[in-house]
């Protein structure tokens, strides 16, 4: 065929360059993480780990909201499932006995403890199962209706947790969760999720999800089964959200139903929107910006002296400023920082050569 002779040998060479650059980047990241581990400042360590957890959570949400174009607000519910699963399966038996004062913990769970990694997977699977159950009626809904239904689901999970005293310890919450969420666990899982998302979204199934996002009717007419593909994305998203929730439980040490209010979903949604709905790179970078930004803006909660204006510290001031920043992003960069683009090596190369070309032209004039 003529088309085959047209194709230059460049892609092969380029993929080698990309591979080497990726390896270099990975070793830099590993080096930084290794250094981080030795850092004495606990605050820096905490924020660094929270960044990684937020990457996992944001990518989970991006899969369904960004790549598939389904507006789901069930994230906090799935996170709660993951968090409680990990907590119940990792807290040592003696601690559990002390905690469950009103009603004892149900039978097999009261003495059962499992390895941390396994509990994350179990939590993910339970969340995926829950996603299947609510997906059957809800995924037939469109747009706003689906958002409302999933929001309702998330609240139902929270109310169930509050009332299932013998399983979740109700309003008292769970304490003494072993702090397994180390730098290596949080970044390891973030890395796995990034790689999975990159491979999945660029596969034929990922393309089908994007087709659904672009035009449902056309996608269905081209043979893409809407229900099956939406369900797949929804369950995968729930799985990763629960894994992120499990990490968050181990990171916090204590959890309660209060942690999984709708605001938790919005926190993650903020990262997804800021980074760009449908961009993995965007979610990763925005996870860092939002996590670090929220911490850094804490200064604003303290006393402020701005010439004539004096305040003796307003709690929540940073959230006001943060909301304003988010508004600016939505108004001026409607598609977020990255839109649906990814920062691949060839894209970066293209940008750089365009910049260089621009400069050359500039000097020629």
């Amino acid at each position, binding site marked *: 065929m003529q088309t085959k002779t047209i194709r230059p040998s460049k892609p092969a060479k380029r993929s080698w360059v990309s591979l080497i650059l990726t390896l270099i980047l990975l070793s830099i990241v590993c080096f930084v993480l290794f250094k981080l581990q030795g850092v004495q400042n606990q605050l820096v360590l905490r924020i660094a780990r929270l960044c990684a957890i937020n990457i996992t959570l944001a990518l989970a949400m991006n899969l369904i909201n960004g790549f598939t174009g389904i507006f789901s607000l069930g994230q906090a519910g799935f996170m709660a499932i993951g968090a409680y699963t990990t907590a119940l399966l990792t807290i040592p038996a003696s601690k559990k006995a002390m905690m469950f004062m009103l009603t004892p913990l149900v039978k097999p769970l009261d003495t059962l403890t499992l390895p941390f990694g396994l509990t994350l997977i179990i939590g993910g699977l339970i969340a995926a199962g829950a996603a299947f159950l609510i997906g059957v009626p809800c995924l037939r809904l469109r747009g706003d209706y689906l958002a409302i239904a999933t929001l309702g689901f998330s609240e139902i999970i929270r109310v169930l947790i509050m009332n299932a005293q013998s399983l979740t310890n109700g309003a008292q919450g769970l304490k003494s969760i072993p702090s397994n969420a180390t730098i290596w666990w949080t970044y390891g899982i973030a890395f796995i999720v990034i790689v999975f998302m990159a491979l999945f979204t660029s596969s034929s199934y990922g393309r089908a999800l*994007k087709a659904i996002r672009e035009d449902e009717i056309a996608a269905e007419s081209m043979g893409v089964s809407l229900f099956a593909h939406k369900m797949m994305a929804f369950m995968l998203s729930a799985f990763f959200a629960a894994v992120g929730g499990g990490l968050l439980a181990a990171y916090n040490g204590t959890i309660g139903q209060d942690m999984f209010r709708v605001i938790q979903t919005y926190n993650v949604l903020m990262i997804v929107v800021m980074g760009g709905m449908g961009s993995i790179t965007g979610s990763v970078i925005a996870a860092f910006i939002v996590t670090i930004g929220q911490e850094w803006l804490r200064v604003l909660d303290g006393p402020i002296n701005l010439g004539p204006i004096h305040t003796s510290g307003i709690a929540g001031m940073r959230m006001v400023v943060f909301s304003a920043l988010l508004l600016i992003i939505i108004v001026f960069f409607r598609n977020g920082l990255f839109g649906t683009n990814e920062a691949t090596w060839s894209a970066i190369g293209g940008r750089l050569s365009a910049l260089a070309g621009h400069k050359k032209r500039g000097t020629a004039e």
Partner: protein
Amino acid sequence: MRKKVLEINDVTMQFGGLIAVNNLTMFADYQEIVALIGPNGAGKTTAFNMITGVYKPTSGHIVLNKENITGMRPDRIALRGMARTFQNIRLFKALTVMENVVIAQHLRLKSSWLGATARLPRYRAENRIMYERAEELLDYMGLLDVRNEIASSLPYGMQRKLEISRALATQPVMLLLDEPAAGMNPAESLDLTRLIQGIREHFNLTILLIEHHMDVVMDISDRIYVLDYGNLIAVGTPDEIQANDDVIHAYLGVDENEA
């Protein structure tokens, strides 16, 4: 005797009190080009939507290659060899030309999502064939040069062509074109006519089209069905239809002095 690819028997579509299509019976033989014409609101697009599964007919049967597809989901019908284009172009706008055509082959993919994500050898082979086929198709349609452009950035005529390419990528036996020449000038319409005749031969297709450009319809069709207010008022070859009084009346109205 030629093989009937599409058979529509006594199909009715009722929306509340409105009968959009009333007892429509028609067929299309293998490699035939059949046109469905009629004034605005005659029920042509409703007929298309029933054939492709968007609407479930109130009564009647639709048979594709001897299989009853009445009321099946659109994706299932697509899998059985029915492909279509839309009256208002419905491309995957933000995706590239290439991606548009590759996505249309997803329905033939055998690898599971896990195999695809893990890039197992079988998926890699399937994926490579999908891209090669897309390149061949785009080459045939004259869109190979714009394969990396974003679909919505293409000029109108090319978007129409891309939509046909995407439909062909599903490897159909039956192609439905909803006003393919809409918004085209006479020269472009002529090109399109040649193109449609070309793809019929090249891909062994049976084609059903809705069209308002009469020069295109008369030039291209083997047989024509005429709908008016949901009722079939005439069937025949282009010459027969042009001479049919009912058709002329439906399009131009009845002369009161004559009636």
